[in-house]
């Protein structure tokens, strides 16, 4: 990208992605494209700025060592997972996953193999980033699998990652005592030493799924921060799938959509995991009018479809209710999305954007309720490393604290709890708990 274009992007970031001011040199075709994923029942679509996805071929670049191994979800998390990685050279095209049922198996026992998919995208100029994905479907619910990713070239040379273990989501019909644990965190941008500490703290709590509320990096188009983000998180993200909401600092960049495998259009979608349904929304669209239009319709459709879910969570980046003195509450989002939260009786709304911790009292239609029956609690936990903002207090605030933080949300059939903690491991005294008859 030329300097003038980059400046334009910084000033008018959302326009950079779909408005096509990105100029590309060389022979990389970056119009995006779609590939049907056999056996999974869904398509993989890449964005403008990235190549069309295609099967890997047995070609190694100068250093085919896998890195940034991380998991995502595009299908049913009970039976599928997406492993995603890059290689050190960004040139290697050989792409494959080896796996087997069982935790922490030796590499020799990974007897199942599946070919991977590759596509490259252009970032901040001529930099070419190549992404590998392997889609595993038809897995057994509530089951641990060991896997490693990498490839084999035409000469038979192999280059694979260490072996990692992941676990599929439980089948709650067969196992009504299932507990799932979500790590909830956001706003790591620019603070990767704290991000590292929180990753360690989250790992200690053994989550099943990571819910990231956006703003992983300062500017989504610049790759070097993504390197830091994934470098630090690999020990956790290679074991636990990541579900992310798009933050304003991701600026709808191709880097974000290429590196994080998510269901549907990657912006507004839903995931069923254990007894919970998580609706995710992009509250920084390239066209702001979509908030109350197309995006609202998609979110409403997902909430309607999942209305019978036992527990309902809604994650997006910018809080409807925040007493922080930095950004504060978003009236725009209250107007656009709050009616849906009330209509579908969402239990917990998860946000970031303000770099502090805040939990609201139970609310219906902006009114504080005496109990959290049928009411919604709003959580801001945007303290994963970005410079902290002053917290505050408003009529809805139950508790707030200016601190680096993350949380774990434990979901069982009849109760859901959230415990927040600081980057030094100490507990934040006010969490969330709710039971249902």
């Amino acid at each position: 990208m030329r300097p003038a274009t980059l400046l334009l992007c910084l000033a008018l970031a959302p326009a950079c992605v779909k408005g096509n001011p990105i100029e590309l040199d060389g022979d990389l075709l970056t119009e995006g494209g779609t590939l049907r994923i056999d056996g999974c029942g869904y398509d993989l679509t890449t964005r403008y700025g990235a190549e069309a996805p295609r099967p890997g071929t047995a070609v190694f670049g100068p250093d085919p060592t896998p890195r940034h191994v991380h998991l995502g979800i595009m299908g049913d998390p009970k039976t599928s997972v997406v492993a995603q990685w890059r290689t050190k050279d960004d040139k290697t095209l050989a792409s494959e996953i080896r796996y087997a049922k069982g935790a922490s198996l030796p590499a020799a026992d990974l007897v199942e193999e599946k070919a991977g998919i590759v596509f490259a995208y252009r970032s901040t100029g001529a930099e070419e980033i190549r992404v590998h994905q392997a889609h595993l479907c038809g897995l057994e619910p509530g089951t641990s699998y060991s896997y490693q990713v990498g490839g084999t070239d035409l000469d038979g040379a192999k280059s694979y990652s260490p072996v990692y273990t992941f676990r599929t989501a439980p089948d709650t019909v067969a196992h009504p005592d299932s507990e799932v644990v979500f790590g909830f965190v956001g706003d790591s941008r620019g603070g990767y030493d704290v991000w590292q500490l929180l990753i360690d703290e989250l790992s200690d709590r053994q989550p099943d799924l990571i819910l990231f509320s956006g703003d992983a990096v300062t500017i989504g188009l610049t790759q070097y921060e993504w390197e830091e983000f994934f470098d630090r998180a690999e020990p956790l993200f290679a074991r636990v799938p990541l579900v992310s909401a798009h933050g304003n600092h991701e600026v709808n960049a191709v880097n974000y959509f290429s590196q994080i495998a998510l269901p549907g259009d990657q912006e507004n979608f839903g995931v069923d995991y254990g007894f919970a349904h998580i609706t995710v929304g992009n509250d920084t669209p390239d066209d702001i009018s979509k908030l109350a239009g197309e995006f609202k319709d998609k979110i409403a459709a997902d909430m309607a479809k999942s209305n019978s879910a036992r527990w309902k969570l809604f994650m997006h980046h910018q809080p409807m209710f925040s007493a922080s003195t930095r950004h504060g509450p978003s009236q725009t989002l209250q107007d656009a999305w709050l009616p849906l939260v009330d209509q579908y009786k969402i239990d917990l709304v998860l946000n970031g954007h303000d770099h502090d911790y805040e939990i609201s009292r139970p609310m219906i239609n902006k009114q504080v309720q005496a109990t959290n029956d049928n009411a919604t609690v709003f959580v801001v936990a945007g303290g994963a490393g970005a410079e902290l903002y002053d917290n505050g207090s408003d009529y809805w605030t139950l508790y707030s604290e200016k601190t680096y933080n993350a949380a774990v949300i434990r979901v069982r059939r009849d109760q859901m709890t959230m415990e927040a903690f600081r980057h030094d491991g100490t507990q934040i005294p006010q969490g969330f708990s709710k039971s249902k008859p």
Partner: protein
Amino acid sequence: MTRLAVALLVLVARIASADPEADADAAFKRAGQLAVSGDPATVNTAIAAYEQLGSARPITRWTDDAWAEAARLAEFSRDYARARRALEQVLEIGTDDRLVARARAALARIEEEGGPAFDAVRAEHERLASEIYGTDDDPTAALTALGALVEQNPTYPRANAARLALALGWEAEGDRGEAMRWFRAAAEAGRRERGQHARLEYVRALTRAADLAEAETELAALDPTLVDSAGARQAAEKLETAYQRRRLRIGLGIALLVIGIGALALARRDLGSWRALGAKLIRPPIEVWFLLPLALLLSLVALPGNPLIARAVRWIGVAGVVIAWLSGTTLEAARAKAPVSARRALTHGLVVVGCVAAAVYLVVAYVGLLDLLEETWRGGPAMD
């Protein structure tokens, strides 16, 4: 006799038909309803209910879940011995590998944090940390108590986390000496990554405190093998930005001062004496009468919003009135001597615009809004 026999038969039939799974399910649900109350006494009852369900036999699918919940609540209630006992039960029953893995991790965490020997220290650390981070009350007493706790227990595995909390806490209280003492102590101790984090926090704190020379020294002294590439790079960038902003602030401050003195000297020349200038300055020029109510109104409108912006509006209003006062007085003095030429009026206008821009920058920097403006420029505006 017949009645007794019937009652016994009914009782036997009930016992025979009891469904331990269903009973355990119901008991788990009841305990869960107690657990979410938030009231410490009720939570304690919930822990006991979970422990009772965990101890009941036969083992059901809810047995290990009950112990896991008892452990979770006990740890949150800072009763680490009770949490440890419950976690050991989960490991012993071991029917759910996911629960077992979590129990093992929780036990490791509790042991890593010092084991039984440090249970009381950890509970006190948690309590004091919440007082320091989480209340609006004066945290000085909690900070002093936590400092004493750390000094009495130097081998406490989480002492470094406590040192950082102390540093940040004292910094927030404006006690720079204590803050820097604890930042230094944290930077020189601790586990690899936490020590590194502490050193970077120290550099950031020095930058915030405008002790840029020492920040530079500390940054240069970071162990290259421990340097967090992104963190160190960002700390260096912040430091460079702080230097640039300081130079700009000093430059603009001197420029405003020189222009102010120059304006007064000019007005004195036009009016003929300092006494005449003093008499002129006492009566606010028309520009001030126009701007003052406007500045007051804007300050009042900004008051309920973001406090940083409210403060900025207030100080920009003050700066605007001062500039308008000087500008008006200078112009009136010039007009008193001779008609003001278009060239001079234009020059005067440009200087005033420059002064206003400089004053706005200084105010925005003073109230700490520069970073917000930069973030808005780089990341796009928030929607509100």
